[in-house]
Each structure stands twice: as structure tokens, then as C-alpha cells.
């Protein structure tokens, strides 16, 4: 029993260290330029209040409350902005500023999102995707809006 508790503690410590290391080394991939109302970022198990100027990182989950909205400019110049009651996850982001090659995958599980694609999609069409509960959007360029909500009966 004592051994297993020790082991658990050691695993927890290792996980914490790993999470901390990834936070310390994770590159900033974009910046919050607009924030209205309650906006939070879930990062490494913590929920942080988001404010204008804050940098975002890979795997951040950005959530807006009722009447809230948020606008983010990414390092490749893509613009993401979400309306109220939205949950947007920045799942994957890789960008080489010299070649413009990269990969950007985001998910909108609920809410509304406006997108202006940036250098990643311009260099490699469909290297940027936005995932919704039912479909994956491949972005060739450049501007679109998408909404996501809990499934309801489709109109016939």
C-alpha cells in the first residue's frame, strides 16, 4: 500500500514536472488582440482569465461566456475571432516564418467563429483545418464563418 502511494506520488510529480517543462518551453503562437466580457484559457489543467495582450500556446482551449467575445492574431497572420458561449481549441500549430510552411488545426466544439486564414493556408492549401462536431473544414482561403452547437433535429 505504502509503495503504491509512493509510486502514485512519484508519477504525479513526474507529470507535474513534464507539464511545467512543456509550459516553460512552449512557444507563443498568437496573441489576444480583442477581448470583451468573460474569456478564459484552459492551459495545462489550469483556467486562466484571458486579457488583451495575453499570448496563446498550442493546446490552449479558449472559452467565452455569454455576451463575451475574443479575437486572436496568430503568428502566421491568421485571425480567429469567437462570439459568445464559444469553446475554441488550438490543437496544433507549427509555422516556419521563413518558408511559410506549417500546420494549423483548431476545433470549435460550440459557439461561433470567424476566420481569416494566414500564411500557412496561403503557402499550403488545406494545411489549416477547423474541426467541428461533425465535419472537418479544410481552409484554402481566406474568410469564412462557422457555428457549432449541440446537435438538434435537422430541418428537412
Amino acid at each position, binding site marked *: 500500500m505504502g509503495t503504491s502511494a509512493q509510486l502514485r506520488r512519484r508519477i504525479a510529480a513526474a507529470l507535474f514536472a513534464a507539464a511545467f517543462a512543456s509550459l516553460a518551453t512552449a512557444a507563443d503562437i498568437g*496573441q*489576444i*488582440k*480583442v477581448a*470583451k466580457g468573460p474569456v478564459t484559457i484552459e492551459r495545462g489543467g489550469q483556467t486562466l482569465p484571458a486579457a*488583451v*495582450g495575453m499570448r496563446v500556446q498550442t493546446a490552449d*482551449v479558449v472559452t467565452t461566456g455569454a455576451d463575451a*467575445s*475574443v*479575437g*486572436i*492574431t496568430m503568428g502566421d*497572420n491568421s*485571425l480567429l*475571432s*469567437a*462570439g*459568445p458561449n*464559444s469553446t475554441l*481549441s488550438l*490543437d496544433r500549430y507549427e509555422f516556419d516564418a521563413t518558408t511559410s510552411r506549417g500546420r494549423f488545426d483548431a*476545433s*470549435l*466544439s460550440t459557439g*461561433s*467563429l*470567424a476566420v*481569416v486564414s494566414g500564411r500557412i493556408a496561403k503557402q499550403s492549401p*488545406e494545411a489549416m483545418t477547423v*474541426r*467541428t*462536431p*461533425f*465535419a*472537418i*473544414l*479544410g*481552409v*484554402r*482561403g*481566406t*474568410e*469564412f*464563418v*462557422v*457555428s*457549432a*452547437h*449541440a*446537435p*438538434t*433535429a*435537422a*430541418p*428537412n
Partner: protein
Amino acid sequence: MLRLLRRIERALVAACVAGGLAACATQSGTVVLLPEQGGRDTAVTVRQGDRTLVLDQPYAAADLTSTGPQPRASSAAEVDRRFAAALAAQPARPRVYTLYFVEQTDTLTDESRRMLDTVAAEIARHPVPDIVVVGHTDRVGSDVVNDALARKRAETVRTGLTQRGIAAENIVAVGRGKREPIVPTADGVAEPLNRRVEIVVR
């Protein structure tokens, strides 16, 4: 996040099996392609399983349903109604300003020195400016010489911006040498338009 989406998907499939196929078509969102400002090619593909739909006309839309994307036409009015808050939160578009230099030097041309005032004033209006200054040269001389000159030009502009009140920590200065001429020329050609610094403001 992906796990959550998969769980929702699984729950839906389970509900469909329980309720019979006719009850299966549920909708969980809409995507609308917006008109492109620059008139360039623009499109979004909607993939679901092995089905792909391409939206490539302004206001072409798809309802995202459990049985696949359903194409339809949307409109500016519908977009304004449903996406007003998301569109209102859109950050300012990144802007690029170009300044020019006297041949072989990091001295701005008179006109560009005046323009630096205008650029600094524009930047000051951004709540959280994020600035990249990229130095370039024309194609006279070696890479080594031009890399150093491009870097020096970028630093000159960075210093110019900080002297005009822009915080240094918000400015990154880099040099690209002669690799990216704006006017394509043979190597060794002096071209004033290539002797430049681009200031990207986000």
C-alpha cells in the same frame, strides 16, 4: 478536445441506432464562405467521412449534419445576424509598411524618414502592437555583405520606432539579405525598390 468530439459522435451514433435511421439527421452547425476582399481564389472544403463538399462562391454555405454537409446559399444578412459578435471581435488585419534606403547604406530616403513618423503614429493606436521589421537589400554584393546590411537597416528602423515612443520589446528586427527582392533582377543589379525594410504590424 478531440476526445470530446468523438464522444459526442459516438453518443449520436448510439442514439441513431436506438431510434432508427429516419431519426438520424441532426444538425450541429453551419459554415459560410465570405467574399474575398482581394479577389483571390478562395474556398473551404467540408469533409465528413468520405464525403467532401467544396464551398467556393461568396456566401456558399453548408449545414453540418450527422448525415453529411448539406449545401445551401447563405447571405450577408444571415451572416450579420448569426455571426455579428464573432465578426466584431476580429483583430485588425496585419499591415505592412515599406521604407526605402540610400544605396549601400542604412540611411533612410528623405521620404521614408517622414513616413516613419506616420507608421509610428499608426502603431501607437494599436492596443497591443506586435511588430516585425524585416530588412532587405538589392542584389549588388555578396550574401555576407547584404545579410549584414539588411540586418543593420532593420535595426535602424527598430531604433527609429523606439525613438518615436514604441516599446522595444514589441519589435523584432530580422534581416533577409538579398534573398527576397521585390523587383526581380539579375545578381549585381542596383535596384532602389529592393533596398527596403518592411514593417509588419499585427
